[in-house]
């Protein structure tokens, strides 16, 4: 018998390992050659009769009977209990098994030697031990809420505010797992330690995250579609009322623009340049599985308190969005609200106070008082000279007194300043998170109040969200999320601030010569002087607005989730979204805006109305999920579901007229009231399924299908089927890549193809129906009612469909310090929903139809880098998107959809052109001389000194046929960049977003501010107008002769401007205030931020972001048009994040 005495500890382990390896190899070699010999060798029989003897003695006996040598470390037999064994003619393996039964030992037989080893799997003695410790971030700052769990075990614990924890574990072997959101998960072997304190490394890459996908979650590494996710905590320092503002510049392929600065309004989100011409191209917003619908024209996202949100997920390609196939044509935004996390009950406060003011560096270049007086002086000189003007006041041919001496004026009144102000915003939120074994609750209560920068506008929101889950038995979950909110929009919905000839535009066009107040302090009614169009004092108009929309809304989700069999889960949910919006509007003698005559108007002009809009939308979804791993490497997940949704909207309106005065601003004070009510509904019925398969998380495959029936479509064509397929290859899991390119920490190539649909059409719930409306006439002096066809039906109206192809890759380098995601997509939109114009000779203006094909394609790139680690941390996230689109087919005859007259919106849809190209005249300056005029093509109104348009038809005449494509609103690329810095207790975050290469048209302000008829305050550039052949001005601005000026202000190249911009969306600096064992406050962070800090652009209007869309509603018909929106303010805010108790 040979006994090896082996070294201890490390050396011992090393040697044993080597021996084991050698032994294994030898064993493999021998087993083949000695197979026959083996039978003989092992045939030796052993007989033992021992009672309570030491194992060493038994082994010695076996050695004697068989000649086998035993190899082992003496120490391992030290604590081994004695053996009792009785065998007769038994094989050596069986005998040893009997001997080692219930003992922490194992053996290997190798030829004539038997190796005995310690076997740790078999527990010796179970003894609870207590481990304490502290968890910090890399800087040593304590982390609260870190989950500590025993590997493979049931016990867990959480760190407190000081980062300290206590956990009781069975035994001194095993390992603890420390996990915390945003940090790398760390595993530490216990190895007898009773105090384990560690630092967690910040996660520098998102690839290991779990992402929310349609009807479930997936590991990011396994995703095959184009999905972007953002944790709300990363954008929390932006002082906003709407979450969409936080998304600006954050995602490749997602354009989130503010098209109006109205409080609580105006966010437009486009995913992958999605555009339809009349159907909505707003992405579908799904909150905790509930698809939201717009109420009327209001965006549903306004009602969500950004503080309730845990994360945003953007589903971009067909495969990702497929399970919302029916309405996913424009992409999907999944919003997950906060759920309670395991750990101690947490209460926190987050709030800010902000001050917003107008960025004066972006104001249209209008004339000041002296310039306007100079212009009007010249205007009347020319009018006397060319038109025989007689001043009606004096009866003589003289320049009116007001303009006779322009030098007496300075800058004059700043009317835009008169209608705007510096306005405060405040926000307060209390969050509570409570997690228990059988239930958990998360509550967020918020208050938000924003005053608008235009006087007398504002937005206020009270909201609560309570998310509760019960887990009465294992495998059963019941959840209830309730989110009531109440918002008050004060003159920010439906009030005349935005758009053509409303308050903002009216202020710009008001004469700076006029003063807003008389010397005695009373307001002046009229904001224009002699001869100018009688505009009202828009400050008075704004002050007298009285339009409040009060909306109570409740989102409610309830679900039941049951584990039926191993891997098989059933979830049924019932969600409701109900709202009541009440609008009380009252227009007194002053408040009527637009180009109404100056106040006061007669008592008869007083009007009021009260609208209520009750709406309820419910969704029932039933989903069965089955997960199975076959033969360890084949991971399979199947999902099947069924969903039904219905929306009903009840509207009532009462109008009041004939008020005796304006003292009671309600319909009840009206002498005459009229009213109406309506009910409108739509429904959607869908079934869907998905199959995911992956082999070792290396080869990924997914396919899904959804079938939808929508009540909106023609009776024959209600159903649409939307299948998709996608695949991925995690190249970095291949051994050869790991060997050859070790710097690549992750690499996945993926592709997808599929169909999605769109039924969000024209805000009409019955676009396919042939409708009959009410009409009235007077017969015999009495009112009689009649009926008339109000909408031509189309039984063949059906889904707008998108075919989308996507290919992309995700790569992580240098231990994921650099990660990059790239996608190329190609999308064909077919059967565009549009109310095609019919010839008027049909008696109808339009019929809803599926008319054309648009093609979209583009590249998206996202780059995340951890530039520095260590004490000073700097991370950069950059994204850039190149979107392109092209109209391929329109209707049966490919006729363009174009502005039906030269004064309407300038966008045209034409085959071979991008969506929404600008269509108008090419401005070539003015007819400078009689010779020039005689030699040039002319419009019917042309004269020497009037505007000269290009004669494209070469017929010698300027007609509407001489209009052509003169601009493209689609940017060449859009981009966003976020830089975040952290140093000790300081952190800083800078977000920029921009757009390059698109153009902006300003037909509205451009139309009126280039009006040379002496009607308004106009662009200062018009001062240099043509006056005579010897005084021809700048060659761009025509003369003021009556009857010749209109062509200059019809849409032409003069009103097309470069629209590139770079906006610094937010700069935030935060500081974690050190707290010395405060009883009430566990964590305190203060920050200051500047939103809309600066805008770099050549565009001369109020905002280049209007470039995205015009007024309300998103269609290709009004793209890139500056509709003179409510200005977007610069906001400076101070905020606190506080952990309580």
């Amino acid at each position, binding site marked *: 018998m040979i006994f090896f005495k082996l070294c201890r500890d490390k050396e011992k382990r090393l040697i044993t390992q080597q021996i084991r390896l050698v032994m294994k190899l030898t064993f493999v070699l021998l087993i083949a050659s000695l197979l026959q010999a083996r039978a003989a060798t092992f045939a030796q029989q052993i007989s033992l009769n021992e009672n309570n003897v030491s194992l060493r003695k038994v082994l010695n006996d076996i050695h004697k009977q068989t000649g086998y040598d035993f190899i082992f470390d003496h120490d391992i037999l030290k604590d081994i209990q004695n053996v009792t064994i009785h065998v007769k003619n038994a094989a050596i393996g069986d005998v040893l098994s009997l001997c080692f039964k219930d003992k922490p030992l194992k053996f290997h037989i190798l030829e004539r030697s038997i190796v005995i080893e310690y076997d740790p799997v078999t527990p010796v003695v179970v003894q609870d031990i207590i481990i304490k410790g502290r968890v910090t971030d890399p800087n040593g700052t304590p982390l609260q809420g870190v989950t500590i769990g025993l590997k493979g075990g049931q016990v867990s614990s959480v760190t407190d505010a000081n980062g300290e924890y206590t956990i009781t574990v069975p035994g001194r072997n095993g390992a603890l797992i420390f996990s915390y959101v945003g940090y790398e998960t760390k595993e530490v072997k216990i190895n007898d330690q009773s105090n384990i304190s560690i630092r967690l490394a910040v996660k520098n890459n998102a690839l290991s995250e779990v992402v929310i996908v349609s009807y479930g979650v997936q590991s990011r590494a396994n995703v095959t579609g184009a999905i972007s996710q953002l944790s709300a905590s990363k954008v929390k320092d932006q002082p906003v009322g709407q979450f969409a503002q936080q998304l600006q510049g954050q995602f490749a392929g997602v354009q989130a623009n503010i098209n109006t600065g109205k409080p609580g309004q105006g966010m437009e989100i486009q995913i992958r340049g999605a555009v339809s011409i009349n159907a909505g191209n707003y992405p579908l917003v799904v909150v905790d599985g509930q698809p939201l619908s717009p109420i009327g024209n209001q965006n549903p996202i306004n009602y969500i308190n950004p503080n309730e949100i845990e994360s945003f997920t953007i589903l971009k390609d067909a495969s990702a969005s497929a399970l919302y196939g029916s309405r996913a044509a424009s992409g999907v935004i999944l919003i997950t609200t906060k759920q309670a996390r395991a750990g101690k009950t947490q209460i926190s406060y987050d709030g800010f106070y902000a001050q917003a003011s107008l960025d004066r560096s972006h104001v249209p270049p209008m004339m000041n008082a002296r310039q306007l007086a100079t212009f009007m002086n010249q205007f009347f000189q020319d009018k006397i000279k060319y*038109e025989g003007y007689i001043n*009606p*006041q004096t009866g003589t041919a003289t320049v009116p007194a007001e303009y006779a001496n322009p030098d007496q004026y300075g800058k004059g009144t700043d009317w835009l300043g008169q209608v705007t102000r510096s306005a405060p915003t405040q926000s307060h939120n209390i969050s509570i998170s409570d997690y228990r074994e059988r239930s958990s609750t998360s509550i967020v209560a918020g208050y938000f109040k924003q005053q608008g920068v235009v006087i007398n506008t504002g937005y206020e929101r009270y909201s609560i969200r309570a998310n509760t889950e019960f887990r009465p038995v294992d495998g059963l979950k019941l959840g209830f999320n309730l989110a009531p909110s109440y918002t008050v929009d004060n003159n920010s919905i439906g009030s005349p601030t935005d758009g053509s000839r409303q308050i903002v535009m009216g202020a710009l066009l008001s004469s700076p010569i006029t003063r807003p107040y008389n010397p005695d302090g009373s307001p002046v009614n009229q904001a*224009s002087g*002699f*001869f*100018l*169009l*009688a505009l009202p004092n828009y400050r008075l108009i704004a002050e007298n607005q009285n339009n409040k929309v009060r909306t109570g809304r409740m989102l409610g989700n309830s679900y039941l989730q*049951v584990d*039926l069999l191993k891997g098989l889960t059933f979830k049924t949910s019932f969600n409701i979204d109900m709202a009541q919006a009440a609008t009380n509007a009252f227009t007194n003698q002053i408040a009527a805006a637009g180009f109404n*005559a100056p106040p006061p*108007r*007669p008592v*008869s*002009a007083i009007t009021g109305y009260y609208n209520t809009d009750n709406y309820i939308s419910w969704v029932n979804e039933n989903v069965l999920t089955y997960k199975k791993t076959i033969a360890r490497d084949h991971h399979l997940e199947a999902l099947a579901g*069924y969903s039904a949704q219905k929306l009903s909207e009840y509207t009532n309106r009462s109008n009041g*007229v004939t008020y005796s005065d304006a003292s009671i601003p309600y319909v009840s004070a009206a002498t*005459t009231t009229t009213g109406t009510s309506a*009910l*409108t*509904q739509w*429904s959607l*019925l869908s079934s869907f399924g998905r199959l995911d398969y992956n082999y070792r998380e290396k080869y990924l495959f997914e396919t899904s299908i959804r079938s939808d*029936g*929508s*009540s909106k479509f023609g009776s024959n064509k*209600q159903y649409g089927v939307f299948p998709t397929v996608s695949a991925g290859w995690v190249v970095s899991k291949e051994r050869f890549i790991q060997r050859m390119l070790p710097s690549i920490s992750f690499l996945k190539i993926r592709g997808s193809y599929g169909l999605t649909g769109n039924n969000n059409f024209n805000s009409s719930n*019955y676009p396919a*129906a042939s*409708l*009959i409306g009410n009409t*009235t*006439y007077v*017969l015999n*002096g009495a*009112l009689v009612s*009649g*009926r*008339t066809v109000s909408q031509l039906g189309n039984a063949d109206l059906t889904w707008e469909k998108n075919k989308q192809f996507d290919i992309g890759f995700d790569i992580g380098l240098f231990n994921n310090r650099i990660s990059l995601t790239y996608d190329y997509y190609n999308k064909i939109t077919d059967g565009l929903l549009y109310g095609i114009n*019919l*010839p*008027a*000779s*049909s*008696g*109808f203006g339009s*019929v809803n139809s599926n008319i054309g094909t648009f093609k979209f394609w583009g590249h998206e790139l996202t780059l995340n880098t951890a530039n520095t680690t260590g004490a000073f941390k700097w991370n950069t996230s950059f994204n850039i998107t190149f979107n392109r689109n092209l109209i391929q087919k329109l209707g049966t005859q490919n*006729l363009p959809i174009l502005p*039906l007259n030269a*004064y309407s919106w300038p966008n045209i849809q034409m085959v071979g052109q991008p969506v929404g190209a600008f269509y108008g005249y090419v401005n070539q300056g003015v007819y400078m001389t009689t010779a020039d005029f005689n030699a040039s093509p002319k419009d019917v109104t*042309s*004269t020497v000194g009037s505007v000269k348009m290009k004669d494209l038809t070469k017929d010698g005449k300027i007609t*509407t046929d001489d209009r052509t494509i003169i601009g493209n609103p689609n940017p060449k690329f859009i981009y966003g960049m976020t830089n975040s810095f952290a140093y000790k207790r300081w952190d800083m975050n800078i977000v920029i977003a921009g757009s390059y290469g698109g153009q902006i048209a300003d037909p509205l302000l451009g139309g009126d501010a280039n009006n040379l*008829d002496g*009607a308004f305050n106009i662009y200062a550039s018009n001062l240099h107008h043509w006056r005579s052949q010897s005084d021809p001005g700048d060659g761009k601005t025509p003369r003021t002769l*009556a*009857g010749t*000026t*209109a062509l200059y202000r019809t849409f032409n190249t003069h009103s097309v401007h470069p629209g590139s911009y770079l906006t610094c969306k937010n700069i935030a600096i935060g500081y974690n205030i050190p707290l010395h064992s405060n009883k009430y406050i566990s964590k305190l962070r203060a920050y200051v931020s500047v939103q809309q800090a600066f805008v770099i652009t050549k565009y001369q209007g109020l905002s280049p972001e209007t470039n995205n869309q015009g007024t309300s509603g998103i269609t290709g018909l009004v793209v890139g048009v500056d509709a003179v929106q409510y200005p977007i303010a610069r906001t400076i805010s101070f905020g606190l994040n506080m952990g309580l108790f």
Partner: protein
Amino acid sequence: MKHRYLFSILLVALCAVSCQKSFLQLNPPTQLNTATFYKTANDFQQALIGVYPWLRNWALPTSWLMGESRSDNTRYDFNTQNRAVAILERENVDDWVDDANNSTTKTKYVADYAGIERANMILDQIEAAGIDSLTRNNVTGEAEVLRAFFYFDLVQFYGGVPLNLHTVASPAQAFLTRASVADVYAAIIADLKDAITRLPQKPTFPQSGRVTIGTAEMLLANVYMVQKNYAQAQEALEAVTKLGYSLNASYANAFSTTNKNSAESIFEVQYQQGSANGQYSYFIYDFIPPMASTTVVTGTNTNTLSASGGQNVPTLDLINAYESGDARLDATVGMIEGHTDANGNFVAESLKSIVGYTAPPGKVGRRFAKKYLHPSATPGQTDDNWPIYRYSDALLMLAESLNEQGKPADALPYLNQVRSRAGLTASVETDQTALRAVIAHERRIEFALENKRWTDLLRTGQAIPVMTAFAAVIKQDPRVPANAYSKIDQDHLLFPIPASEIQLNPLIKQNTGY
């Protein structure tokens, strides 16, 4: 336990599938649709009421803009302040600055066809509906007359237009080519002849405002007059004279809001003041100058400074055409006296009679269409109906048809009925050519501001010479745009087909000269 879960899933799925069909069949609960309508007599009565309101779309503004302002009877006051495109477009119609993109002239085209299509809906379905014959005949007759009225308007202003006589059942059917002028007239005459056999053989007085057999006969006569088919025109007009119509004692009373649908009225567009039902008219506010307060003129206060006032203003040419002592001048045209304020706005001070008016120093007098000025309770919402055919039209056309057939002596009694009511001496002219001029002049005065002047000039072939002479005078005013009245020729006797119509439908060819 597990089975119970599976069972409930099955139950949910089953229910979902079984309620599927009805779940998706949603019709607007607060509106009817064509599948369920057009069945009963009441349905057709209501559908017929649905045709009439399109007369209002026809009336404002293109009936007076294209029917009166286009002629030598009225022009616009220069609205120096409000140069909005909508106002320029109206001025362009008046100035003969024609453009197929003019959205104002398009409203006539759209309104006519909208009315036609609503009539088509009835006429296509009423025969098969199996309703009682009285309702069927009445509704059919009225719908046919209204359709004929709209087509007659189209053919006079645009020439041969697409002849759409049936409901558009699919988008493809909406694209038609232009029919010939003769075909359009044939369709109009066929409709009217059929209607005459169906409608009650006498109007009932007081009239309701509906189309009557009188309307049908009058319209048919007008069509024949345009076609210079004087014998058949005479026949139809003589039928009108036997239907019980008569002239009011007072000319002004024919337009009074207290005398609507009188025995003189053959057809007029109905309005009613009071805002609750939205049936009011608004004509007078387009006709008086823009002013901060209209109280002096209309009796109630409206601020029209930024509205489209000062249009359809009677010309001096028209005023001078009145014979002295003609009671119709004071009834037709009024004078607003006032001054200009510091902002250049007109301020009305008092209403004056046009007869013998001269403005005192420091004051301005502004003419306006007094014919349509009647008090209304609510500012901006008037009660005035809009005349289409009056009995004097039948009398003067009858006189004309007789004169054209070489029977001037037979014509005189009808002419003199109209003259004597106006307080004028009877005409004794028996020379056919001279009498032709007398009748034409009488029509100009009798129907001044009633939108007959332009179509009368067209019908009598006088449009080019009359307008050329008028333009020569009016263009001496330096405020008249240089390009105004520059194309008074045969081509511009028709308006252009709206440009949008040609863009949408390549089968439509534009009128020559545009």
